[in-house]
């Protein structure tokens, strides 16, 4: 059964890939969210601060504008448990920087280049993500 969410997923995915294609063929850079953001946060990418900042402006502004034009509310279904938010945020930020990439860099840009590192990283985070949901949702019941 084809759910509407699969169609939206595919269309949204194609646009995400197009974004990466524009960044690569235009600026010669890999579109990795943790890399673009992390380079500003820790100062390691300050030589390209303008590109990074403008990318982030577009990333925040486009969904805001789209929802405004369509007159609909965005929904994140995010938890309101502050401890979960803090722990998850630290793990995501720390892990992505240690691994030099996240879902966009290693996942989208790495797999499409048949990069062994990208494919391996994706395997590791999918595995850990599955275990995390199993542990925190089904065993501990905190999410």
């Amino acid at each position, binding site marked *: 059964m084809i759910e509407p969410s699969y169609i939206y997923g595919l269309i949204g995915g194609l646009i*995400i890939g197009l974004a990466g294609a524009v960044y690569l063929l235009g600026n010669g850079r890999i579109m990795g969210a943790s890399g673009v953001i992390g380079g500003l946060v820790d100062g390691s990418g300050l030589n390209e601060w303008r590109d990074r900042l403008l990318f982030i402006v577009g990333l925040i502004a486009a969904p805001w504008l789209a929802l405004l034009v369509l007159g609909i509310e965005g929904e994140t279904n*995010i938890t309101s448990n502050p401890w979960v938010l803090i722990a998850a945020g630290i793990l995501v930020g720390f892990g992505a920087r240690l691994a030099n990439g996240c879902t966009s860099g290693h996942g989208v840009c790495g797999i499409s280049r048949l990069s062994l590192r990208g494919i391996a990283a994706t395997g590791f985070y999918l595995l850990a993500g599955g275990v995390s949901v199993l542990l925190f949702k089904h065993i501990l019941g905190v999410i």
Partner: protein
Amino acid sequence: MRGIISVSSGALFGLGLLISGMVDTSRVQGWLDIFGDWDPTLAFVLGGAILPMAIAWNISERRRAPLAGGSFPARPAQKITTDLAIGSMIFGAGWGLAGLCPGPSFAALSFGGWEGLMFVGSMVGGMLLAVPAKHVRSAMA
């Protein structure tokens, strides 16, 4: 030129994340929840994203330089390091816990409330903690 490309790419990325439902934490957690009510949407998103990106990599191999000048990124050494494995697993654990990763957390900043802001703030903190950790790791090597 570089600025226009950056803001356009960021805007497309944000729209794609919104349309695909990746800003919805329940969809991401549904994908990871293989022992519960499994949601395959994320596979369509990743598959859809890989297609144009694979074409772009192919084009980049036949072109001398990017449109805005400079050079294309060199292929990094294809070594699966401990940092890559451990970092990815730590990242994955957090991804499953909240259902958010760096891209969607920023794409959702305008409508994610204090919760989204708290996640992003903590993520920035985690990124800063990775700096000394990387120093320690390289000193060990």
